[in-house]
């Protein structure tokens, strides 16, 4: 998915003379194409993330349409108050790219891992939040974010080589990425970002419906009808369940007044720092979310639904 960012930046620079990219001394090859073709559209503001948000706000107020790039740990986490006051309060159309979200930087430890960005941003007024699962969703989210008249945050997590969707997707509503085998089960998998891949592979193996949720705010209310008559929902995300998609699903169900028995199970990051070094799968493993553990936990969850396992 990450490879898809660079062409989006280039296209935006070519189609919109107000477009600028700001980075806090980070990003390297992500900006190579932009810097080669439009060096004047890239501004390295230095290792100064807080100022960077204020600078983006000022640029916005003088007619520019900046995109701000950082690691999710720094942008938006380190700069949360600047996002709140400099961007959200004035409803300024700045697009924030938060890279490496989740446990991508597994060997670099707690400072570079980020499982709290969505939870921190969700209560802020005016900001839209996107969590694409592949290059196609990324493009759809980017187009929508660039069209928003308010701030937007794009969460870029672990980049897996293969796309989920077979081709371009329209809009940012929840998307069924795998349909249930008729009559197979009353369990549904809901996932966002990099974790759609894991949800999809389990859904395929067990004939379940799997839904990807690329836009988390404004609330994706059209998810609720897609749950059909499900009795159990598993929510998978590389983010803390509390405050993330799991919370969001529960809140939407409550608000919709769905008065039937529906259990919503959390498969997200635990509220803890990873304790040891290792690769991405190892870090997920500390949260019981590694590929194997997740498959085992989902199997146990599915077994408990009483659905037949193939």
């Amino acid at each position, binding site marked *: 998915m990450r490879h898809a960012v660079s062409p989006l930046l280039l296209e935006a620079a070519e189609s919109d003379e107000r477009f600028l990219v700001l980075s806090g*001394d980070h990003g390297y090859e992500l900006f190579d194409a932009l810097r080669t073709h439009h060096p004047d559209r890239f501004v*390295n503001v230095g*290792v100064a993330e*807080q100022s960077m948000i204020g600078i983006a706000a000022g640029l916005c107020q003088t007619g520019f349409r900046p995109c701000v790039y950082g690691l999710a740990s720094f942008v938006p986490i380190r700069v949360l108050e600047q996002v709140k006051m400099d961007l959200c309060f004035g409803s300024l159309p700045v697009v924030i790219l938060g890279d490496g979200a989740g446990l991508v930087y597994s*060997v670099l*430890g707690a*400072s570079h891992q980020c499982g709290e960005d969505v939870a921190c941003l969700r209560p802020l007024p005016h900001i839209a939040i996107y969590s694409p699962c592949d290059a196609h969703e990324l493009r759809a989210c980017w187009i929508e974010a660039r069209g928003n008249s308010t701030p937007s945050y794009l969460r870029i997590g672990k980049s897996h080589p293969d796309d989920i969707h077979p081709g371009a997707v329209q809009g940012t509503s929840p998307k069924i990425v795998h349909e249930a085998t008729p009559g197979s089960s009353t369990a549904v998998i809901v996932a966002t970002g990099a974790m759609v891949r894991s949800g999809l592979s389990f859904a395929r193996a067990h004939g379940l419906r799997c839904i990807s949720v690329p836009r988390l705010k404004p609330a994706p209310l059209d998810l609720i009808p897609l749950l059909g008559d499900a009795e159990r929902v598993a929510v998978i995300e590389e983010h803390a369940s509390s405050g993330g998609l799991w919370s969001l699903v529960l809140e939407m169900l409550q608000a919709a007044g769905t008065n039937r028995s529906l259990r919503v199970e959390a498969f997200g990051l635990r509220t803890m720092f990873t304790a*040891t*070094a290792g690769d991405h799968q*190892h870090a997920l493993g500390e949260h019981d979310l590694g590929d194997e553990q997740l498959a085992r936990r989902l199997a146990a969850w599915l077994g408990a639904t009483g659905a037949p396992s193939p």
Partner: protein
Amino acid sequence: MFEPRTLRRHIVDLASHGRSAHLGCALSLVEICAALYGGVMRYDRQDPAAPDRDLLVLSKGHGVMALYACFCDLGWITDGDVRAYLGNGTRLRGLCESDVPGCEVSSGSLGHGLPVAVGMAYGLARLQSDRRVWCIVGDGEMNEGSMWEAMLFAAHHSLDKLTVIVDANGFQAMGRTDEVLSTEPLVAKFEAFGFAAVECDGHDLPALTAALTPHDGPRHAPRAVIARTVKGHGLSFAADDNRWHYTRLDDATRAAALEELR
């Protein structure tokens, strides 16, 4: 102990076993760490948590392999730790984290270490302790506003047991500091902020040791030593080449590095 060539060899071993980035970032720190651990700093070689030790805060936490190299010499890190560096389930992370004995502050996010070091110096001053606080920062890290806020506080409270050491290698992540966001003139800036600041060759161990060693008597001002260094120093293929901020050693470069450090 703390012979720069040996320390650099430890760094190359760590970087190659761990397939780690940040080789150049650690190499510029070697003499600074050698001077501190080699005599300037008060600590207990047997006990990284000795209660009366000076506190060393590596604010540019991505240079942590230079600290680990000293810990290798001290026996705080074993050959096994080095061989397993960054492997699944191991305790040493690629950035400075305070759950590793000898690492006082978690500082992978830039602009955190100095404020914490200032808090330590302030706390120790309130306790009328004679323990010192040493804080190593990057010249690119000086982009962060939190650094300058902390400097104001340090000078305002006359924290004379605090020494800030700037690893002034002239680079940051994406380019030369002068081209990205200049932080010079560092000596004048530290002086203007109320520090007693000096400058020296950051690879000249005796000069560094002299610059770092505190003079007797109260000074009523925090100190700054601007160590003029070369990113990647000690390996001819990496010296002053910022690709070694993120490039990983392969078999060929590892062999070349070990040959040069023999």
